[in-house]
């Protein structure tokens, strides 16, 4: 299990991380979400020793992470990059060996992954001769040749076409099924909702929400109600209390209600307004949870102790 414990990191006056804490379990896919500049990349760099936190630590299986531990991780940084003039096969072999594989093992893993990604015929090509999408595939393979126990991918879906996205999703799922812990960051929330079991949402260097997506949804007090009533102009809804109209077009309406809403009353009201065609009551989508979680506090909560210094955050 990967434990990120109370990480804090400043770059000059900029607070990158401000006590970030979360865990990633083997065999689970964790979506690591947050607005730009929230601290996702810095967190990942702390896991790989590429940034040294001012305080806090990262543990793997209960132990602090050292160089040897890291060799069992796979990393795909946000800033993609490999050796442009090095041949694809040798490149993968090199990184495999740097992760501790012998020359033979690395060569075998290279062939296996090139075949898996449909690039077996490009083994002798220089990386720069490959298309952008294929370079991305090679980048992914460098994180995988050594069969890592933990896979950390920074924005793996950015810049991928639908085919690339499908391959990436497949590989990520496959790895998790093998028992690998996967952490990946993304801004494509629908994709995350589709692929991940768990999410961690970071904003302004702090974790603002974390846990299985289903639990987060259940815990949210918000619900959506999609209603279609033929032959009604929707005026009836204005007579109901505690209902916020999110969208309204023609007969269709999307309402925001809280989870205590008296559904029976609503249903009765809808039926009496016209011919009811749709009535679905659902938890919020991940993207809505995300917007809610990362929203800047409008004003400092009054409960905050006055002694705590005001944090300069971006």
């Amino acid at each position, binding site marked *: 299990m990967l434990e990120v414990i109370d990480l804090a990191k400043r770059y000059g006056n900029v607070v990158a991380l401000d006590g970030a804490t979360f865990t990633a379990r083997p065999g689970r896919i964790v979506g690591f979400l947050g607005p730009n500049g929230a601290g996702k990349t810095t967190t990942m760099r702390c896991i790989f020793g*590429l940034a040294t936190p001012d305080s806090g630590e990262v543990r793997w299986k209960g132990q602090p992470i050292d160089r040897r531990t*890291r*060799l069992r991780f796979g*990393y*795909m940084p946000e800033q993609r*990059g490999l*050796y442009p003039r*090095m041949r694809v096969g040798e490149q993968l072999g090199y990184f495999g060996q*740097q992760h501790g594989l012998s020359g033979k093992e690395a060569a075998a893993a290279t062939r296996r992954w090139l075949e898996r990604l449909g690039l077996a015929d490009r083994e002798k090509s220089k990386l720069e001769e490959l298309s952008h999408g294929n370079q991305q595939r090679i980048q992914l393979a*460098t994180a995988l040749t050594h069969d890592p126990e933990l896979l950390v991918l920074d924005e793996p879906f950015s810049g991928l076409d639908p085919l690339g996205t499908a391959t990436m999703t497949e590989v990520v799922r496959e790895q998790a099924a093998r028992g690998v812990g996967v952490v990946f960051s993304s801004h494509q929330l629908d994709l995350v909702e589709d692929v991940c079991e768990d999410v961690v949402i970071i904003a302004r260097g702090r974790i603002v929400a974390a846990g299985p997506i289903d639990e987060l949804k259940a815990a949210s007090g918000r619900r959506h109600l999609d209603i279609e009533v033929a032959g009604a102009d929707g005026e009836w809804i204005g007579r109901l209390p505690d209902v916020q109209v999110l969208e309204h077009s023609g007969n269709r309406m999307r309402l925001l209600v809280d989870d205590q809403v008296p559904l029976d009353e609503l249903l009765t009201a809808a039926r009496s307004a016209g011919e009811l065609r749709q009535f679905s009551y659902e938890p919020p989508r991940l993207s809505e949870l995300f917007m809610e979680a990362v929203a800047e506090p409008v004003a400092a909560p009054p409960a905050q102790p006055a002694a705590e210094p005001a944090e300069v955050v971006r």
Partner: protein
Amino acid sequence: MSRARSIWLVARRELFERGRSRGFIFSVLFTTTIIIGSFVVPVLIFGDEGPTTVGVVEPAPEQLESAIETTAGLLDQEMAVVKFPDRAAGDTALSDDKVAALVIVPADLSSPGELVFKETADPTVQGVVSSAIAGLRVNAALEAQGVDPQTFVAAQAPPTVQALEPPEAGSDTRFLIANIGAVLILVGVFSFGFTVLTGVVEEKQSRVMEVVLSTVLPRDLLMGKVLGIGILGLVQLAVFVVAAFIAASLTRELELPATTPGAAVQLVVWFILGYTLYSTALGVLGALASRMEEASNASTPVTIVAMLSYFVAIFSVISDPTGLVAVVATFIPFSAPMVVPMRAALGAITPIEIVVSAAITIVAIWVLFVVGGRVYAGAALQTAGRVKLRDAWRSAGQ
């Protein structure tokens, strides 16, 4: 996996990727061709340094052949004589460049005869042949007067030659080795050291650095790079030296001077130390730059130090190898690689000085790896603009 293997993997990648690149192979072939050419071309243009052939038309005086060869020997020349039965055969040989000149002297030495050249007179040949004929004619005249030829030969003996301040044996060679050493080390620093510099910037520019550093420690990456490019540099130098020796021995220009083998060994050792020291410094500075254009700016301090050390070595040390400047420069890590082999070649350094100087330089290299590794770690992932040394040091802080 051990760190040693990690360092070796980095070094091997540098070695193979650079060693078989077309640019590298082309530059090695090109330089080798130039080196071989510099030995072979003068021979092709100025001809083989064999003896100059002079034709003699029969009938000629019996002793003429030996007289010409002996006289040439006295003037430090080599001449061979070819005989022709008649003038026509001689002229043909002369116009075909078979001989440099044609000598026609009556067998009884009754006249000085003729010396014929194809186009213009070669003053050396003219001098040698004239003296030989004159000698023979004087001999004949004196013999006719009853003078003993032995007395005559004794009277012609040259004076003994001496020098008031003879140079020490092999001093030219020492001077040569001292200068070649300083130039080699300077060239090594500039070409291979800058390969390290550009290699580091390339890794930053192509953004591969982050993937590499997620498995390789920054110091190990720097060490591996310096090692790999260093091996490549030594191989390249070895190719050049072997090519030069082969070309020189084939054209018979090489007289291996009685060099001091110790000085040659020192040259190799200090080449390695100097390259390692300077290229490590350049590698660290390269990490501070994020684009190629900034790299040369970033490297300026090292370039200045290298040039200063070189000038101290070739101006100050060579004129006074045991003076204050030479001794101080011996114990400064950046000047030691140029100054110590020079003093050693001139035979003006004690073994203790060499050992202490080498130890100081090795310590300096280690400090650079440690300090440099940290700066490298702090700067390697900052890809926007030039990173300040101090910021890089801090951001990699524990």
